């Protein structure tokens, strides 16, 4: 049954319904089963045995992006995301994991997993398939190509600039490591220019976000403990990541989960306090502004859920982007509404996901920006394939890539 922490959390719901207005999934389905309030009531019913586990309940529980938008507006301060994750874990006891997820989790995301290799295989397979085939509403040809070498294959474990000011551990995260190593390289180059020594501990594994959202607790616990060990081993001032979801999980979820499991959370909390999103870390580096050279372009910014709502980081990336000379910043409507990705959500509910990302793309186009910046590789992946064809699309870039570009221009001039 659900933990004491979550059981107490459930009692705080006053059923006011304000979470319905914030929920991207409810806004499209307009049914209470899709609403955060509805799911909280279902968990309550399950707990009081007014309801039993069912496949339908499992479907309802998975119809959530875990974007934490509901928690951000809840007057009672409910952590609805945690409750829904707990509901999924509960249902997993009855039905087990989908075989596809089981296979993927066991072989790709655990220690010694082969995510990079699998993506390479997928890449080869993809070249054999018709390019108009769709995956989660995206044409195969619109998805990014997977680079041959992962970030961690490209860079050494320790990168020392000429003069060392601070030392940080860098948590690359699976997507940046294997699909977008250029985001990682950009982050490392900016850090280097600022005299930051970077350590990427060899033993880091997937942060566990995909496991957490699937309710798979056992493997999550292994990954969690290994990452805490690896990140606390070297002597560093901060732990920096450029992935919104990894950052949120490391910073907020690890300690919460351990408390929920009735385990000691001291080490995870200590680790969590050191975690900074790259945009937070760079905002504190005052000399950065002086190093930036002009980047004449119109930019807009998409708030990743796990950064804006998960970590409360909204102003920092905007501040950094606006500090680049000659950037015209054009704020989009509903900038902090989810892109519709939600991890496996987009594969299980392609139609809902498609509707959500279409409104997002429309809001982006209205700004007339050439580039949409964001702070999460998963948002980038979701947005990229929905912003026009390969040649005419609005480009999606991580905030730190634009900073790196601006810094590089400085060197040239």
């Amino acid at each position, binding site marked *: 049954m659900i933990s004491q922490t979550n059981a107490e959390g459930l009692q705080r719901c006053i*059923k*006011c319904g304000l979470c319905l207005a914030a929920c991207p999934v409810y806004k499209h389905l307009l049914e*209470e*089963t899709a609403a955060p309030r509805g799911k909280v009531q*279902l968990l309550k019913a399950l707990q009081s045995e007014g*309801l039993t586990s069912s496949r339908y309940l499992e479907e309802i529980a998975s119809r959530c992006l875990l974007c934490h938008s509901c928690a951000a507006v809840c007057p*009672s301060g409910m952590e609805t995301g945690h409750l829904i994750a707990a509901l999924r874990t509960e249902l997993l006891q009855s039905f087990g994991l989908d075989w596809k997820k089981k296979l993927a989790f066991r072989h790709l995301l655990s220690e010694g997993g082969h995510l990079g290799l699998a993506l390479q295989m997928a890449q080869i397979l993809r070249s054999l398939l018709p390019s108009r085939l769709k995956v989660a509403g995206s044409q195969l040809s619109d998805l990014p190509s997977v680079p041959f070498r992962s970030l961690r294959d490209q860079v050494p474990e320790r990168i020392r600039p000429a003069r060392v000011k601070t030392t940080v551990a860098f948590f690359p995260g699976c997507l940046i490591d294997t699909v977008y190593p250029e985001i990682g390289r950009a982050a490392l180059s900016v850090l280097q220019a600022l005299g930051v020594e970077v350590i990427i501990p060899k033993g880091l594994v997937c942060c566990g976000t995909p496991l957490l959202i699937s309710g798979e607790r056992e493997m999550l616990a292994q990954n969690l403990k290994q990452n805490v060990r690896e990140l606390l081993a070297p002597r560093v001032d901060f732990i920096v990541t450029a992935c919104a979801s990894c950052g949120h999980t490391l910073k907020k979820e690890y300690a919460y989960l351990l408390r929920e499991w009735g385990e000691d959370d001291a080490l995870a909390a200590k680790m969590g306090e050191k975690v900074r999103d790259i945009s937070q870390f760079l905002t504190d580096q005052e000399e950065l502004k002086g190093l930036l050279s002009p980047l004449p372009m119109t930019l807009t910014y998409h708030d990743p859920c796990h950064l804006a709502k998960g970590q409360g980081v909204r102003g920092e990336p905007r501040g950094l982007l606006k500090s680049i000379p000659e950037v015209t910043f054009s704020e989009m409507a509903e900038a902090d509404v989810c892109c519709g990705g939600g991890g496996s959500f987009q594969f299980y509910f392609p139609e809902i996901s498609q509707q959500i990302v279409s409104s997002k793309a429309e809001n982006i186009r209205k700004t007339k920006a050439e580039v949409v910046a964001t702070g999460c590789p998963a948002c980038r992946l979701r947005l990229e394939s929905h912003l026009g064809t390969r040649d005419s699309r609005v480009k999606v870039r991580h905030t730190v890539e634009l900073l790196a570009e601006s810094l590089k221009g400085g060197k040239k001039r």
Partner: protein
Amino acid sequence: MLNAGALRRLEQIVGKERVKAAPEDLVTYSYDAYLKESLPGAVVFPQSTEEVSAILKLASAEQIPVTPRGAGTNLSGGSIPVPEGIVLCLTRMNRILEIDERNRLAVAEAGVINGDLQKAVEAKNLFYPPDPSSQYISTLGGNVAENAGGLKCVKYGTTRDYLLALEVVLPSGAVIQTGSRTAKNVTGYDLTRLLCGSEGTLGIVTKVTVRLLPKPEVKRALQAIFPDLGEAGETVARIIGAGIIPSIMELMDQAITGAVEDFTHMGLPKDVEAVLLVEVDGKKEMVEKEISQIAEFCQKGGATEVKVARSEEENEAIWLARRSVFGALARLSPSTFSEDTTVPVSELPAMLRKFPQIAEKYKVRIAVVAHAGDGNIHPCLSFDERDKEEMARVELAAQEIVAESLALGGTLSGEHGIGISKARFLPMEFNPATLQIMREVKRSFDPLGILSPNSFISQKLKE
């Protein structure tokens, strides 16, 4: 549970996809924003007036109770269904059909979200004033049924003041039209106003025609700190008496202010009895003049600090306090119930003095936030529902609040509705003849008594 035959007929009317009766669906339609819960027999999502009519014809033929519902933000329990009944959910009827700039009106289906209509008309420089705190999710149909108010009622009135015409499906399935697109209309009984605030007991609103206003040019907010609650109340009465009509005038007592400060850390003093928040809107020159007049009233009335916003950001900062009220309260105790009593504005100071006495007498916690400008007060009672003895004292305190308010010429509810939450107090406000004529009105619209089984006029759910 609904019988299989009726369920099949519902599916024939709207299609299998839009009838839900799995246990999981029923759980999620067993509540609104009030404390009680009760499972329905089925939930149906019509998409047109014809479908609503067909469902009600079926319900009449089989005598099945029907509970109409929008977003389920009802604070008085009128959207809570009964086990043998149907929840008729209008969220899928959500098209804005027309925005007529020349006649300054809009026509929308009942399931349109209040905030969506506001956004659409504001894009055309128009303005739909009713703004209940559920505005970003509650539906127009629900707003009409409850005659929803909000912060701006002191100047702009409630939902009722913006209704021109309604399309309504009666319990028999007959579709009626009330009102017209005209600014003036005295033809026949004013059914529009009868249906508005009828809490879904007479008919189901499917289409709403509302009056719009030009969008005010500017707005400006002010925050005044009063060491004495009575003086704050007097100041409100004096501002209204002087002929100034603020767009918003909100009052928070010491308990609320303290809770908001603990929650937001925005720098509110915790040792004062009242904080008054005022907003004025309109033409720039007028707004400037009135806000300084109000500031003067506050200073003369005993305010120790008066802060006038100088920018949109400062306006927002002032309203943050008010917007945080329920969040702050919800963190104080397991359950909170907001009463909704309303008195004539001149009696506001007298009513405000009663709350500390009532709280003391029954040893309950009462925190007060008031739409002071219109006399609508939300004394928030905090309690633990599991504590039976405390609940009994809360009940007595609530009853005394009602009695005191009525003695001052007030009313039970200003904007939340009676529903099942305050039905037991109705005889305190109405004499038997008044209650009787209301029952007769109900009977002539709904002779079988199938509509909104849990309401002020009939109550199936046991307290």
